[in-house]
């Protein structure tokens, strides 16, 4: 493995783009369908509980400061079980990358490029994805630094133009507050976590082993998570203010519809392109990180030093998988609603907890043995 190092700030930016990723377009709808007008509170609770998840990842990073997740799995769980689980993790990350291509292709063909065949879009997306991954993590991180101001600028423009058009939003849409009860709220927070913070497990392939200042990076992880959380919360509040809970729940891309409804005077219209650009920026980086994590852990599981020869075959596989994994939108929506939260819970929470537990037990047993030895 060659020595790629990114700075703490680059990591933070990558994490912000990664966490905003798909969440920005899809989550307002699925939260609103569970907790209606309280969706924004679910986002706040979700962001706060993400701190715990991130703290868990940081704890693992501290124990194994020079290892990636694939290596940690092998050293804690033993050779064969470790390899097996890290291959299943490869599939998890790989499937996520293909799912994101599917999302982007689906969004583009249904909302913007109506007459383009979806295969063409998937192939083009996969091409930029492969380009990014082949150029390496450092290049991707620098590109993220370049795109981040664009993202922030577009976000501010979007929020500003919604707030300026005061006849667009109604405060009554947020009422009544906390009406939905505790169980739907927990469920909504769970859905939020499953697409916002559990996927961050793939960051353990980068942090802490490929970061220059791991100590500083820990702090910037928290900053990144809270920034992303604030962005999403603002966007969800706006969606509900403008569209109301019912419409938000019914739409597939509520935040896109939100942007479509903006019209300032007769000169500022069709802001939805802004949202599309923002979303394509974030989804690109999310895709790259997933794909990079998949391919690096694949290489490390098979003890292969250079991952680059595998990018192209993996790229072809990702296109094929993205084309046939979801036969239609209903299948995708049902999968996201029923299976995805559990799937990401297993890798994002259960796996790291299990790792910590086994590591602790092993250490304890070793300690006990050492203590008994001198007596005998």
């Amino acid at each position, binding site marked *: 493995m060659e020595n790629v190092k990114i700075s703490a700030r680059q990591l933070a930016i990558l994490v912000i783009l990664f966490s905003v990723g798909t969440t920005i377009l899809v989550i307002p709808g699925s939260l609103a369908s569970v907790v209606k007008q309280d969706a924004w509170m679910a986002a706040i609770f979700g962001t706060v509980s993400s701190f715990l998840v991130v703290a868990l990842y940081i704890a693992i990073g501290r124990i194994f400061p020079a290892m990636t997740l694939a290596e940690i799995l092998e050293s804690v769980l033993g050779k064969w079980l470790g390899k097996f689980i890290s291959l299943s993790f490869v*599939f998890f990350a790989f*499937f996520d990358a293909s799912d994101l291509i599917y999302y982007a292709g689906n969004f583009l063909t249904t909302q913007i490029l109506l007459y383009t065949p979806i*295969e063409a879009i998937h*192939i083009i997306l996969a091409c930029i994805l492969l380009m990014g991954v082949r150029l390496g993590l450092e290049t991707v991180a620098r590109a993220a630094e370049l795109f981040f101001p664009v993202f922030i600028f577009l976000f501010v423009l979007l929020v500003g133009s919604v707030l300026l058009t005061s006849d667009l939003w109604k405060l009554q849409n947020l009422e009544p507050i906390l009406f939905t009860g505790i*169980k*739907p709220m*927990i*469920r909504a927070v*769970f859905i939020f976590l499953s697409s916002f913070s559990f996927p961050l497990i793939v960051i353990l392939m980068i942090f802490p082993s490929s970061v220059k200042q791991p100590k500083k990076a820990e702090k910037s992880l928290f900053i990144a998570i809270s920034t992303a959380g604030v962005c999403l919360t603002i966007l969800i509040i706006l969606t509900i203010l403008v569209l109301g809970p019912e419409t938000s729940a019914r739409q597939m891309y509520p935040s896109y519809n939100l942007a479509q409804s903006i019209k300032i005077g007769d000169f500022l219209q069709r802001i939805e392109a802004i949202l599309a650009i923002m979303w394509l920026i974030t989804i690109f980086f999310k895709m790259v990180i997933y794909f990079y994590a998949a391919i690096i852990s694949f290489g490390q599981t*098979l003890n*292969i030093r*250079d991952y680059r*020869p*595998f990018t*192209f*075959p*993996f790229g*072809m*596989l990702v*296109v*094929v*998988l993205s*084309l*046939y*994994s*979801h036969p239609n939108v209903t299948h995708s929506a049902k*999968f996201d609603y*029923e*299976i995805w*939260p*559990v*799937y990401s819970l*297993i890798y994002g929470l259960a796996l790291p907890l299990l790792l910590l537990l086994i590591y602790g037990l092993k250490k304890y047993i070793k300690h006990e043995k050492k203590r008994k030895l001198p007596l005998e």
Partner: protein
Amino acid sequence: MLGIAVTLVAAIIITAFEVPKMRKKKLTKELWTFLILMGMAVGLGIAESLHLNIPNPLNGIRMVLQPMSDVINGLLK
């Protein structure tokens, strides 16, 4: 038809691009892994363009995780 052609052309270009480099460096293990992956990609790509019924890995995941999902959804109803 177009799908098959694109898959094959892409596979040939990629193989011609990557394999000589690996052979020069005598990376046998890498070469085999590459060829297996490439075979999978070509097979799946052709099967997909012929609209054959490829087993979907998501159905496997769904089968394993559905009970857990039902339990969680039942608890939070």
